[in-house]
């Protein structure tokens, strides 16, 4: 094996320029793929992080049917106090959960005493909400300050349109479940930067204020946002929680709850899927580049060394060994190209990450700084693909070499 490797390396050095070109081509392909995966992956991760950590949480539990009519925020689809109690009991037993936050979602009117506009509001326990969606505080413009009862966080666009600033007094008027209207005065505790995605332009008040505005005797929550300790296990935990809650039925004997992971709650998931699909496409391109370049160089190598193949066959080299010799050359090309590509690609990604020069706009969020990173597993997978394809690409020329009749090969000029 070691000798086959030595001969393969020597043969590659025999055609230095060709080897250099092929290795460069493979390395450039690997660099581009790693670069693409790191940037698109970081973009995806960042956006998922933005969406889950500043708005929707990792998963949510609703009363069955609530999500289908979420646009109208129906108060009569909220969880009844007993149902929420049951849910809380189950959630408190789950070690995977880092935090959860019950919310009362409702639509209302927002008045600055001069003008009136509509607003979507979330009644929350601030401490629970900030643990569940930790980036919410970072969306508060001019810095986050304590958020208490009687205060409201309002979305940026509304604040601008209504010419409201921090510290101003405003009124929220809402219609409760029975159709009666109630209002309450709030002090603006902060302006929330808009975020793209569901709930990105909602305001926040304390959950007890929401109950007061809606004249709820007992708390009826619209949803429970959940943050789990390991984001990678969202889907598994969603399935687990769904299973745990599936036994809970309403009076009609139908399921009382529905559990949705962030993927089902955010339209960004489709974009994330598209990014994954494009990554596969880019990998296919890399495979094509490696396949064609290695096959080309190995076909040339076999053609140029026909007499040599005849010689080694004549002196008793078995066909399988001749095949191994050429496959080893292809393998070495792939390994060298992959390693150089991995090293250079990682350096470039590190520089991009360190310098923070990659910025982009997402909806109303401008100048988001992308910090590309690449997981060692991704590097390993790309390298394995390149090496595997290199071996596959060299098989045909190697097989041809091994099947050559020594007598014909020796006569070749």
């Amino acid at each position, binding site marked *: 094996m070691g000798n086959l490797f030595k001969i393969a390396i*020597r043969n590659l050095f025999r055609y230095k320029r060709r080897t250099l070109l092929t290795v460069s081509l493979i390395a450039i392909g690997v660099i581009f793929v790693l670069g693409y995966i790191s940037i698109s992956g970081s973009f995806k991760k960042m956006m998922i992080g933005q969406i889950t950590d500043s708005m929707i949480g990792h998963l949510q539990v609703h009363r069955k049917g609530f999500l289908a009519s979420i646009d109208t925020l129906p108060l009569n689809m909220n969880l009844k106090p007993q149902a929420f109690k049951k849910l809380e009991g189950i959630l408190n037993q789950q070690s995977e959960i880092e935090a959860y936050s019950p919310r009362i979602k409702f639509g209302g009117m927002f008045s600055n005493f001069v003008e009136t506009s509509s607003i979507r509001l979330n009644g929350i326990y601030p401490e629970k909400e900030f643990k569940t969606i930790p980036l919410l505080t970072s969306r508060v413009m001019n810095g986050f300050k304590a958020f208490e009862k009687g205060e409201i966080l309002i979305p940026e666009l509304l604040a601008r349109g209504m010419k409201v600033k921090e510290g101003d007094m405003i009124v929220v008027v809402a219609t409760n479940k029975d159709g009666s209207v109630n209002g309450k005065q709030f002090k603006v505790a902060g302006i929330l930067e808009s975020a793209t995605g569901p709930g990105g332009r909602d305001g926040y008040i304390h959950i007890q204020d929401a109950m007061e505005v809606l004249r709820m005797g007992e708390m009826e929550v619209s949803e429970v946002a959940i943050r789990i300790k390991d984001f990678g296990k969202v889907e598994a935990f969603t399935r687990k929680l769904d299973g745990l809650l599936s036994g809970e039925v309403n009076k009609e004997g139908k399921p009382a709850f529905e559990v949705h992971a962030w993927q089902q709650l955010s339209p960004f998931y489709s974009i994330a899927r598209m990014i994954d699909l494009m990554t596969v496409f880019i990998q296919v391109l890399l495979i094509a580049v490696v396949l064609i370049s290695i096959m080309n160089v190995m076909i040339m190598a076999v053609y140029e060394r026909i*007499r*040599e193949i005849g*010689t080694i066959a*004549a002196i008793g080299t078995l066909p399988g*060994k001749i095949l191994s010799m050429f496959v080893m050359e292809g393998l070495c090309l792939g390994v060298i190209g992959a390693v150089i590509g991995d090293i250079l690609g990682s350096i470039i990604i590190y520089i991009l990450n360190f310098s923070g020069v990659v910025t982009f706009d997402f909806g109303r969020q401008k100048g988001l700084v992308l910090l590309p990173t690449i997981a060692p597993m991704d590097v390993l997978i790309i390298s394995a693909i390149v090496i595997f394809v290199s071996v596959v690409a060299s098989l045909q020329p190697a097989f041809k070499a091994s099947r050559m009749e020594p007598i014909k090969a*020796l006569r070749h000029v």
Partner: protein
Amino acid sequence: MSLIVAENISKDYQVVAIKVSKNYGAAENVVRALRDVSFTIEPASFVSFVGPSGSGKTTLLNLIGCLDKPTEGNLTVVGTDVLKLDRHESAQFRGDNLGFIFQDFNLIPVLTVFENIEYPLIIVKNTAAGERRKRVMAVLEAVGMVDQKDKYPDQISGGQKQRVAVARALVSDPKLVLADEPTANLDSKTAYTIINLMKKMRDELKSTFIFSTHDQKIVGEAEIVYSLADGELVDKQVKGGKQNG
């Protein structure tokens, strides 16, 4: 009709050819490269096949070397009926029993002199490293190339290349060494040196040497000379009282 007919094949011969023919092409375009050639070669002989270009020397050596198969006849090399060998077995047989010396030396350009000689021991025989080194150094010594062992083929002369080729052919201790026009690309002085080297190695290792040539001066160095013309064996000369088939 061949002049020489193999007889008494129960003797221990290295090569036994009985009415061996080789045709190339098909139907009306058939070329009869060898016609009913019969001969025997004893172990440790120093045999030459001579004849003009196209007489069938190379074809015959290719058949003996299991690089090709006769169209007709029987051919036994080192006790093996080579017609029965498949592709894989032929390669194995060549590696185990034969050594080759080529007209163009055919050294592997990416390997040093030492590595070229070592090659059959590694790739073909799987010899252990210590034993390999010992044997390579021994043949290097024998062919007088020890001081050139780390050079690459393009750094040595034609004569030196052929010495290396001789060493490579002998390093695996073959029973039979085949050399097709080994001196064709060498000047006459070097050619004599190579032939004498081959003879010396035959004396030391007791391997059978068969070489083809059309150089009459070199032919004189062979102990048994078979003459070929138009694919037929037309003459046999034995020197020094050595008798053969």
